[in-house]
């Protein structure tokens, strides 16, 4: 019918920008090589006509594709190809029915007039906090002290209802501690566990982490008869009943499950999980390993290994920290999947003011989400104490004492890549289920985002916590390094 005036078909001479991605499509979120555009366009046409043909023979498009699991929609070429392999349709219906048209959420109301005055005072407090942090960075502790006194006077004007006003109090206290050289409050393992479980209840963050990691582990364990999960920090083992249940319901029957729980006092938790596994018919054994003793974990030949790290890896990032040796240990265990969940924030910047600012805005978002959750008073208050400890650690501590060294997912991607891991994309199935979980348990404002195969939980668009999955690269050079224990690079 004639030539397209914008883009004639490429001739053999047009090989110049062969491997470049189309910049305009990249600017709107899609990665397609310029040289692939014609091919992708052809495949789109093919997919379109296939869907039309299927519709004509009675299969509607949405049914055709609803059972497909989508991965990385930015990579258009592979997304289209994966859909093409879904056609003709296969018969297994999705286990989940989609609940759309849900009732509207309850509104979060606040007196509009009062809001104006409070917001002004809150904004002023933020300015003062930043100035104080800056003076600490410059070692002007006299100025810092006077600013702290000034801020304490401002406090009664701040509404403690939500957002930055509320969290400022914790940051103010932390700054005060830092310049007063007060020792960190002593913590017991019991306290830690209690606060952790309140935090778990008060907001969906940890549930999201567990849920998403479990989904990835479940998919990785497909077709395996003997599976072994290694949890880098067992705590109450809150993550595992759901996985055990899902394995019990697996078509074809459950695998034999081994769980290795690392941490203090894990034996009791192990017993409870064993009871539960028995009650649902999953063959189960538990191994307790002391905190920090990943090196003593053994894997058996023939078992599929999943290593699970929820909010653990950042603890290893101090200058003398063992992150590299831990990642090497993990790789040597030859896991089928490594699930990593981390706070998506940059609280490890070397300059104090930068760290302080990042943390101020991150935790204010987090506290905002806790407040809107409107959970029972007790849980929220304890959850705030849990977070307050993190804040104190970030603001008051240095060196090996500063363990809350959160880093954004982008940096973990680089670090894990260097350590010999490659990403496994979490797909639309995990996304869908995480979204549905949020709708059931949480207030409006939470969202799930997908970025380069990782899923993150966000509050009003601000990413709070990111979940990702990895496997060891099959690289023989990497395997050699692991075996011979010397560094090539």
């Amino acid at each position, binding site marked *: *019918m*004639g*030539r*397209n005036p*914008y*883009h004639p078909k490429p001739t053999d001479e047009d090989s110049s920008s062969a491997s470049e991605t189309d910049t*305009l*499509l990249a*600017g*709107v*979120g*899609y990665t*397609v090589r310029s040289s692939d*555009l*014609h091919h992708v*366009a*052809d495949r*789109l*046409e*093919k*997919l*379109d006509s296939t*869907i039309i043909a299927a519709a004509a023979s009675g299969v*509607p*498009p*949405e049914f*055709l594709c*609803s059972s497909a699991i*989508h991965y990385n*929609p*930015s990579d*258009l070429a592979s997304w289209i190809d994966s859909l093409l392999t879904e056609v003709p349709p296969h018969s297994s219906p999705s286990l989940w029915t*989609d609940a*759309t*048209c*849900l009732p*509207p*959420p309850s*509104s*979060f*109301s*606040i007196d509009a007039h009062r809001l104006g005055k409070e917001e002004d005072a809150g*904004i002023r407090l*933020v300015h003062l906090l930043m100035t104080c942090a800056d003076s600490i960075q410059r070692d002007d502790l006299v100025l810092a002290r006077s600013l702290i006194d000034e801020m304490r006077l401002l406090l009664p004007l701040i509404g403690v209802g939500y957002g930055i006003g509320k969290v400022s109090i914790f940051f103010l206290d932390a700054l005060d501690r830092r310049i007063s050289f007060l020792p960190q409050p002593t913590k017991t393992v019991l306290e830690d566990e209690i606060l952790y479980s309140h935090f778990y209840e008060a907001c969906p963050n940890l549930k999201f982490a567990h849920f998403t990691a479990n989904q990835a582990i479940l998919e990785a364990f497909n077709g395996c008869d003997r599976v072994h999960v290694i949890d880098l920090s067992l705590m109450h083992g809150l993550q595992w009943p759901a996985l055990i249940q899902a394995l019990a319901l697996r078509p074809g029957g459950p695998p034999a499950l081994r769980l290795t729980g690392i941490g203090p006092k894990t034996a009791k938790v192990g017993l409870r999980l064993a009871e539960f596994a028995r009650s649902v018919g999953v063959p189960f054994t538990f191994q307790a390993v002391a905190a920090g003793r990943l090196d003593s974990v053994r894997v058996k030949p023939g078992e599929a290994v999943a290593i699970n790290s929820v909010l653990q890896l950042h603890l290893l990032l101090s200058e003398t920290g063992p992150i590299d040796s831990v990642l090497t240990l993990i790789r040597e265990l030859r896991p089928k999947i490594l699930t990593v969940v981390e706070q998506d924030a940059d609280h490890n910047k070397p300059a104090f003011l930068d760290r302080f*600012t*990042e943390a101020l805005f991150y935790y204010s978002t987090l506290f905002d989400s806790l407040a809107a959750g409107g959970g029972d008073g007790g849980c929220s208050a304890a959850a705030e104490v849990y977070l307050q400890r993190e804040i104190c650690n970030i603001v008051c501590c240095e060196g090996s004492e500063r363990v809350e060294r959160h880093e954004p997912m982008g940096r973990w991607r680089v670090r894990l890549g260097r350590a010999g891991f490659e990403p496994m994309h979490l797909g*639309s199935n995990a*996304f*869908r289920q995480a*979204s*549905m979980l949020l709708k059931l348990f949480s207030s*409006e*404002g939470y*969202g799930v*985002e*997908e970025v380069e195969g990782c899923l993150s939980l966000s509050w*009003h*668009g*601000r*990413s709070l916590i990111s979940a990702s999955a990895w496997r060891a690269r099959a690289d023989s050079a990497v395997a050699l390094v692991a075996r011979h224990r010397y560094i090539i690079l």
Partner: protein
Amino acid sequence: MAGGNEVNVNESRMVVPLNTFVLISNFKIAYNMLRRPDGSFDRHLAEFLDRKVQANASPVNGVVSFDHILDRQTNLLARIYCPAPDPADVELPQLVAIYELQKAPSPNPFPVIIFFHGGSFAHSTSSSAIYDTLCRRLVTLCGGAVVISIDYRRSPEHRFPCAYDDGWTALKWASCQPWLRSGKDAKLRVFLAGDSSGGNIAHHVAVRAVQSGISISGNILLNPLFGGNKRTESELKLDGKYFVALQDRDWYWRAFLPEGTDRDHPACNPFGPNGVELEGLPFPKTLLVVASLDLTQDWQLAYAEGLKKAGHEVQLLYRERATVGFYFLPNTEHYHEVMKEIKSFVRCDL
């Protein structure tokens, strides 16, 4: 070319640049998978597939953006785009929002554009990459405009009039912000803009505005979404030919309009049998962009006629051989010329 025995030549592939064809075909196929015949919508898959970007308070090409809640009662979120502030005034990206929101009215006039993204009332958000890119462009294009992209509630979960209410809430919010006022008279120089369903929302918010005494400097409607019960010639002739089918349009109206109503509802057909009289109201001047290969063009042209008959100023840009979505990628004359017209439209009365 693969599949050489195909008889149907895909006409849409012939009239747009290849990357545009890939982009819009991708949307067409993806959206097809999300709509169900019973009127429900696969929202989870929709959000998964939507390519989104975060707001960025560090300057990129001289523009910063941040998300802001305009109204806590409805949790109405907007993404605000501004020209990057002077680094001497704001040292850290996290302080940009605070700095901007606290500014006093500026002596130099600047336009404020409240933008409603498209998506036929069901798709996309203010963080969708296609719209983030477009809004950033508008800031620079209009010589330093503030663009406020509204994350309005979408159908089928939230039908008429939710999206309009959200637009109205946004406009009321804007009219209370000192930092959005400018010029010797410290006025809010606000334009309502949108594409597809966003254009429809802009119209209805403008009506409510002028009925309530808020002055709008102008409306910018890009391929706005209007319709009616009647099947027009363009709908029949172009059905299915250029990325859009009449069946889809029908689905989106059924998902948006109140149950039991039809396409002659005034939301869909503002100059139809149930329309509101606009004569005598200080309705703003309108820049209306119509693509000749958009099957809803007859309704858009009827809209222009309706405005003119009511005595209101309409500048019509009818783009020959343009399809829906031509404004997403800066790779055609359509894109560049329309952007030029938007720029003059916005800056001429400042």
